[in-house]
Each structure stands twice: as structure tokens, then as C-alpha cells.
């Protein structure tokens, strides 16, 4: 067993390399820069490629281009950079090109509060790019979980042929923790399914029976096909309005219909809870500490932590809403995930929000006060 002291951003690169990352394109921005720096050091050592592009937009484009040749590809950014990624993120979604986009969040809008922590990109991760689409976004809460979730982000992107967003907190990204590096038999690596048919028979965007997504040929392997951001049919060529509904529906359904596979979450002391806190990332660690103290004083409180925040673990949240008297969504923003939790749980129980916008972590004692107020008030 290998044990290391590792920073969150470092764990992200280590996880990516373990998943098979062979290409990274990025642009410097705090608090994500270490991910680019470490990728620049490590990738050429394993025959991979690193390039610092001229901006965030081109980084996202280069990542998609590299992935089309078969390389597992990643980019990382923060706040304003994530806004710039959105254009080509949408391209990756419609053209179904696997890649991983890391956003180490910072306070916004705009240049905002560089580079204090915030959890303000929850809705941008879901709806940042224009048009209807489904999103996969993962939200780890420890250095070890960053390692694991980076591997998972690659796996999900390969399996579902879509960009996967990894939302990190500045606090976890820059924190150092002891981590146990998993053995080979403890991790799963998924690679995209490649065509077995001849190039003549290949339809680049046809989903074969029993498959979730089309088989994906690497550019330069004899399968000469067309990739476009336009609405296209199963051949990949522009098809116009008559094919739009079927395409967009398929792109949404391939994710929404597979929530049981995609969604992971943690339940903490919920069995007998009257009050459930919903929290993710660094905030969930404050919540856990608060719950431990509150339990010591006899308060029946627990936590539901979505690790996959998009698609949201709807079934689990709905079940939870039927057995608790109140849900408090604690997040470092003005109530973004609250909107989603309230949509799912609001018809069955009282859903409240507790947030902040000052670039500081929500400490356990504040959560303790909020819960006590809810209990006694």
C-alpha cells in the first residue's frame, strides 16, 4: 500500500494519469493552476502531451480535438475560465466527445473574489452552455475522493461519450491530506467502445442495439467520418430540424436514464434523523463535524451528500423527503442546489437554505446554530 501526503489539485492529476490521461490543454488561472503545472511535468514522462493554449476557449477546443484521435484528454480552470469553456463544452456534448473539465471554483461573478473559495458554479455546471442538454458533474469532498472522482470522471466520459465536469472547492484543491493510493484491483478503468465493423459499414452516430452511445472511431484509423456541432443524423452529417428532437432527446436520455449507474452519494446518520442537511464538497465536512456535536447533544440530525451533483440523485432525495421533517441545504452560494433539492423534496417536506457569499468556509458552529434554531424555533 502506498501512502502519500498530497494536495487536492495534485491528486486530480495523479488520478487523471491513473485513468489514462494522455493529453492536457489549459490556461493559467488560480486556484486551478497546479493541475496544469503538474500535468506539464508528468505528461511527457509517460509519452503524453501538454500544451498551454492562448486562452480557455482554445484549451477546450484542443482537448476535444485530441480526444477525437483517441487520447484521454483533460483541461482545468476556475471561475471566469469556466465561463469561457462553455462554448466548446456544448460542442463536446452534441458531438459526443469524451473529456474531463475540472473547475476549481472561486468567488464570482466575473473576477469576483480571487481566489477565495465559493460553491457558486453549481448551476453553471448544469446550464452554462446554451441549449437543452444533460450534464454529468462530480463533486468530491476530500483529497482521496478527488483522486477517485477524477478516475470516475474519465470513466463516465468514456462510457457515456460526453464531457464530464469535476467541480472542486478551492479549499480541497489546495488542502494537503494523507491519501492511500488504491491498488490496481481496487480501481476500474473504462475505455470508449471502438467500432468492430468495417469503415464502409460505420455510421459514426448510430447507437447499436444494447449500447448506450455510438461506437467511436479514432481519427486516422481508416474510419473517415464527419464531426459537427450542427444537429446531425446517425451518419454524423447535418440533418436539420426533423432530426433535432431525436438527437437532443437521445443525448439527454443517455444520461438521465442511467442515473442509477451515474449517481453516487453518501448518507450520514440519516436512519433516525428528523433533520437532514444536504451539503457537498468542503461544506459537507463542516456539516459532518456539526452533526457529530449535535448528536452528542441529542439532536437527531444527519446528512445527505450528493457526490454526483448532476444529474441529481433525484430518487434518493425524494425518498429522504418522505422521512425527515426538514431539509437544510447548506452551500457556499445563495442557494443554487437548494433550487434543485426544493424541486424534488419541497412537495413532501420543508426545504430551507443556508448559504454565504463572503469567500469563507461555513464553519461547523454556524451549522450547529442553524440546526438548533430549526429544532427549537
Amino acid at each position, binding site marked *: 500500500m502506498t501512502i502519500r501526503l498530497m494536495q487536492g489539485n495534485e491528486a486530480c492529476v495523479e488520478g487523471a494519469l491513473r485513468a489514462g490521461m494522455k493529453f492536457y490543454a489549459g490556461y493559467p488561472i488560480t486556484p486551478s493552476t497546479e493541475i496544469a503545472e503538474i500535468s506539464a511535468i508528468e505528461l511527457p514522462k509517460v509519452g503524453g502531451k501538454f500544451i498551454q493554449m492562448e486562452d480557455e476557449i482554445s484549451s477546450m477546443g484542443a482537448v476535444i*480535438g485530441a480526444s*477525437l484521435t483517441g487520447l484521454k484528454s483533460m483541461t482545468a480552470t476556475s471561475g471566469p475560465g469556466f465561463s469561457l469553456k462553455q462554448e466548446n463544452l456544448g*460542442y463536446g456534448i452534441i458531438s459526443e466527445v469524451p473529456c474531463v473539465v475540472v473547475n476549481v471554483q472561486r468567488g464570482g461573478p466575473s473576477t469576483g473574489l480571487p481566489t477565495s473559495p465559493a460553491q457558486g458554479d453549481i448551476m453553471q455546471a448544469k446550464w452554462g452552455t446554451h441549449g437543452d442538454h444533460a450534464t454529468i458533474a462530480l463533486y468530491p469532498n476530500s483529497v482521496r475522493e478527488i483522486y477517485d472522482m477524477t478516475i470516475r470522471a474519465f470513466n463516465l466520459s468514456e462510457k457515456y461519450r460526453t464531457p464530464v465536469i469535476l467541480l472542486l472547492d478551492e479549499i480541497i484543491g489546495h488542502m494537503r491530506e494523507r491519501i492511500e493510493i488504491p491498488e490496481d484491483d481496487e480501481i476500474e478503468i473504462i475505455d470508449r467502445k471502438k467500432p468492430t465493423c468495417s469503415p464502409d459499414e460505420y455510421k459514426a452516430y448510430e447507437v447499436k442495439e444494447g449500447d448506450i452511445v455510438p461506437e467511436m472511431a479514432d481519427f486516422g484509423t481508416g474510419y473517415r467520418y*464527419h464531426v459537427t456541432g450542427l444537429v446531425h443524423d446517425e451518419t454524423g*452529417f447535418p440533418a436539420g430540424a426533423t432530426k433535432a428532437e431525436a438527437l437532443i432527446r437521445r443525448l439527454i436520455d443517455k444520461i438521465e436514464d442511467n442515473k442509477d449507474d451515474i449517481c453516487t452519494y453518501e448518507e450520514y446518520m440519516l436512519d433516525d434523523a428528523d433533520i437532514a442537511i444536504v451539503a457537498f464538497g468542503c461544506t459537507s465536512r463542516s456539516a459532518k463535524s456539526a452533526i457529530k456535536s449535535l448528536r452528542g447533544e441529542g439532536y437527531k440530525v444527519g446528512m445527505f451528500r450528493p457526490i454526483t451533483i448532476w444529474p441529481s440523485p433525484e430518487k434518493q432525495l425524494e425518498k429522504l423527503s418522505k422521512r425527515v421533517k426538514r431539509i437544510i441545504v447548506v452551500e457556499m452560494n445563495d442557494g443554487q442546489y437548494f433550487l434543485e433539492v426544493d424541486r424534488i423534496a419541497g412537495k413532501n417536506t420543508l426545504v430551507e437554505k443556508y448559504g454565504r457569499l463572503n469567500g469563507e468556509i461555513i464553519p461547523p458552529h454556524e451549522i450547529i446554530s442553524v440546526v438548533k434554531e430549526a429544532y427549537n424555533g
Partner: protein
Amino acid sequence: MASTLVKEYFREDKLPHIWCPGCGNGIVTRAIVKAIDSLGLDKDNVCIVSGIGCSSRAPGYLDFNTLHTTHGRALAFATGVKMAKPELEVIVITGDGDSSAIGGNHLIHACRRNIDITTIVFNNNIYGMTGGQYSPTTPTGDKGTTAPYGNLDANFDLCELTKGAGASYIARGTAYAAKQLEKFIAEGIKNKGFSFIEAITACPTYYGRKNKKGSAVDMLQTVKESAVMDKAWDRLSEEQRQGKFKIGSFHVEAKPEYTEEYKKLIASFNKGEE
């Protein structure tokens, strides 16, 4: 002859193309295909990348690995493709607005890196797809739907721009002199580094109509009469140059190519193991 070319290199079932009658894009596209044919490139090893606009629709008609990307970003995607798989011959098809307005930053940085990509700009001096707005190459004073009183902007000389930015092969040809354009494109593809070929073409539908340039044939005739080979250009006075532009292969420079340099970096880590 033409039909063999179409059979071999075009996706016949995707034709006819969307371009207007009289558009020069077909001539430029043919020159690209002829250049590829003359070099005997393997279709499986050619990747054609484009952005958004009239010219950027060309890859859809061509039987290669084709990538139709977002507006202005063709070179960004192409850089990823080339870095990831340097053995691919990467060609970018783009327009004047696509390459030098929204994609201007990507253009200068691809030049600076001298990455082995051949870029062909279909310069028709206007945004055609959106209906005739002025572009960075619309001559000052000319009209567009967003320059109803004449364009106040100074226009780019894209060959000077790319020279300043570090491209290692630069040429300008025209849709009139298609044979010569084909030669420039072939030279560009052969060059190990960033090659930039500006193809002057005509948009009779928008630029022509807005600026009373006559028919498609008249416009090609004007292109022919205005284009002056670089050696002859050097002998012209400032006055004689008015209303004309120079063509030719202006700049060839041997310098380190980006993916080759990266290959050396990777090799430096393998030394100990050999």
C-alpha cells in the same frame, strides 16, 4: 478529370453544396483537393478542420477525417488533433471573419508555435453566412449590412499579420488563378510548420451586391486584374498599387516545428531506458 476527382475525394451523396451561384468557394475547395491529390496523400491520414461560415462547410463534402467546429475555433481543435496525432496531415479551412476576427487569437498563436498545420483562408471580404456584414478584411470605405455608410475600420493584411506572428510558409493566391493557388496549397502542405495560404475569392451575393461589383464573372475579372505577382508588385509605385493587391508565395522560413520539438522532449525521458 473533374469527375475522377469528385469520385475520389468528395462525399458525392452530400452534394450539391450550399454555396450560392457564382461563389468562389468551389474553386478554392477544388484547388485544395487537387493539391492533396498531387501530393498523393493517403485520405485516412488527412484531417480537415473548419470553423463556422460559408467556407467552413467545405469539409462536410470532402472524404477525409473531417471536423466542423465552433466559430473561430478551428485552429484550436486542429492544434489538439495535431499534437495528439502528429502523423496526421492537418488542414484548416476557414473564412476571413472566422480566422481573423473571432479566431484571430488562435491564428496568431498557431503561427507563433509554428505547428505543422496548413491553413487556407477563403477571403471573400464579408460575412456571407450571416448575410453580408463587414469583416476585418472588408476594405475601408466598402459597404456591408452593418457598414451601411461605408466601413470605417482599417482592414487586415492577413499575410503580413501571419508573417509577424511567425508562420513559416505564407502565400496569397486567387480563385481566378486556380492552378497557381493549388501550387501554393501543395507547397504549404509540404512545409513542415505552420503554413498560411490566403485565397482571394468572391462573394457576388453579399459583398458584390452591396458594393455594386457586378456579376460573379465581373468579380472574378476584377480579382484577375487587381492581383499582381509579388516581383511585379515591387516595381509598382504607391499610386500604381491603388486598388490592387499582391499575390505569390511571400515567405518560406525553416524553423523548429512544434510537435517535433515536443517529440524530442518525450524522447529525452526515454533515453535512460534505451
